[in-house]
């Protein structure tokens, strides 16, 4: 159980986010009150259809949105605070980076913004280029990268400064099967180094394969959460594979309709 000295890596306490709909005075609830904890070093997968609250959850952790109610903390620090932002690496959904820079130049720029300089920056840029499989494309302009390579450079910038928490919004979006396998390998590698990873996905099979914990979201509500084995129970062995998880997800989603 995390303590004051070693707090939860991620802690949502009745965190809710809603937006006004305009002149009518109504509100759209992007995320209903969410209470959730994640221990350091775990991989958490956020699953759900479009509009279920996955990106909102990740943006809250990244400090890009403020809560309407409740709190969100990262290693004991309020999300979005100066202290929290030194602990986070973030890959947004389908990003497009500066097309005029080479992959290496872009990563050096990101390193500078994270206060990495000189030999440390050069070493880390080389490491993440190799780690993400972009070593040979490092001197090419980012504008010439394929979708998969853009995703890799995005992943590289997210882990460049060795954050304790890595947030990935739909990292498998647009990747071919080979790219997805490589992504799974990179996520497992991060977890093996003790980094906490939270990512969103539509790909239930991928989530089941790499996650220690799963959170099923639907229309801003937490539908279910737990370890894949807990969620799937004994039936997992009888019916292995993603189809069982998909079935469970649909059951939970329809139960709230």
């Amino acid at each position, binding site marked *: 159980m995390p303590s004051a000295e070693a707090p939860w890596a991620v802690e949502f306490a009745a965190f809710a986010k809603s937006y006004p709909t305009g002149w009518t005075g109504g509100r759209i609830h992007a995320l209903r009150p969410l209470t959730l904890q994640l221990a350091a070093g775990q991989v958490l997968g956020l699953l759900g259809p479009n509009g279920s609250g996955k990106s909102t959850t990740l*943006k809250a952790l*990244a*400090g*890009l*949105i*403020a809560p309407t109610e409740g709190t969100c903390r990262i290693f004991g620090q309020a999300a979005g605070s*100066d*202290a929290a*932002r*030194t602990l*986070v*690496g*973030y*890959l*947004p*959904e*389908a*990003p*497009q*980076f*500066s*097309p*005029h*820079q080479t992959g290496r130049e872009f990563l050096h*720029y*990101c390193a*500078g*913004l*994270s*206060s*990495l300089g000189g030999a440390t920056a050069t070493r880390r840029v080389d490491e993440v280029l190799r780690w993400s499989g972009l070593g040979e494309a490092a001197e090419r302009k980012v504008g010439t990268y394929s979708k998969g390579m853009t995703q890799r450079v*995005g992943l590289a*910038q*997210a882990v460049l*400064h*060795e954050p304790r928490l890595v*947030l990935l919004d739909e990292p498998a979006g647009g990747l071919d099967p080979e790219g997805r396998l490589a992504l799974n390998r990179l996520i497992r590698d991060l977890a093996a180094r003790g980094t906490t990873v939270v990512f969103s996905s539509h790909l239930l099979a991928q989530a089941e394969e790499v996650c220690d914990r799963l959170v099923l979201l639907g229309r801003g509500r937490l539908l279910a959460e737990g370890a894949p084995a807990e969620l799937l129970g004994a039936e997992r062995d009888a019916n292995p594979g993603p189809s069982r998880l998909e079935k469970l997800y649909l059951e939970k989603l329809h139960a709230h309709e």
Partner: protein
Amino acid sequence: MSDTAHHGPAASLRRIRLIAGHTLGAALHQRLALLLAITGAALVLGARWLRDFNFGAAELKFIADFGLGAIGFFGTLLAALATAQLFCSEIESRAADCVLTRPVRRWEYLTGKFAGVVALLTLFVLTLVIVLGVVLAVRESQLGATLAPLPVFLQACALQWLKITLVAAMTLFVCSYAGSALFASCAGLLLALVAQLRGFAGGGSWAWLRVWPDLGLFDGEALLAAGHPASGGWLLSLAGYWAAYVLLFVALASYAFKRREF
């Protein structure tokens, strides 16, 4: 990474410099700045052949007025369009998310963006001033006449620079809450137009416009017409006026941007 490396004025300045350099690099790779610089330079070079439209003014004065007008007009377009495009495109492409989730404060990001645009505008003005200076020097030697002393010419060009950087600051304020580059560009140009016409605001229901900056004060053509350098006190007060408004717009933009959600 030690926590102290992220804090303090030196760390802030380093991040602002990085963002400014990145912004300038992006701007120089866009066709917009090049297109406006080439069009402006072509007009300045061709001013000599447009003197039939000079309405009786002396040729050298016409060339200078035309050149300064081109710097002001195309500079205003560049200030509004480049600021909007460089700022909003990074937000729309989500590249800004990767910056703002690092230990970069929102005001640092805004200031860096503004500094990058100011560097671009400085290069733009310098290029056109050199072209205009060469055209004037050639015609002066051919005609055996002099337009105005060099310090007056340089002061007139500096006023144009002050004017267009103020337009960039106004547009930055719009960008801090705008949802698209198109809206920010149009609003920036509209605000620049209001500021250009601000001198005509009388009393009554238009009196509120007096709080808005008056771009008519940065009239380089009037300085050239006077033919002698402006006093140091006047230049200082004008620079103070410019600095106060730039600071105000950047502060307002920082306030709005700090509350912006992505």
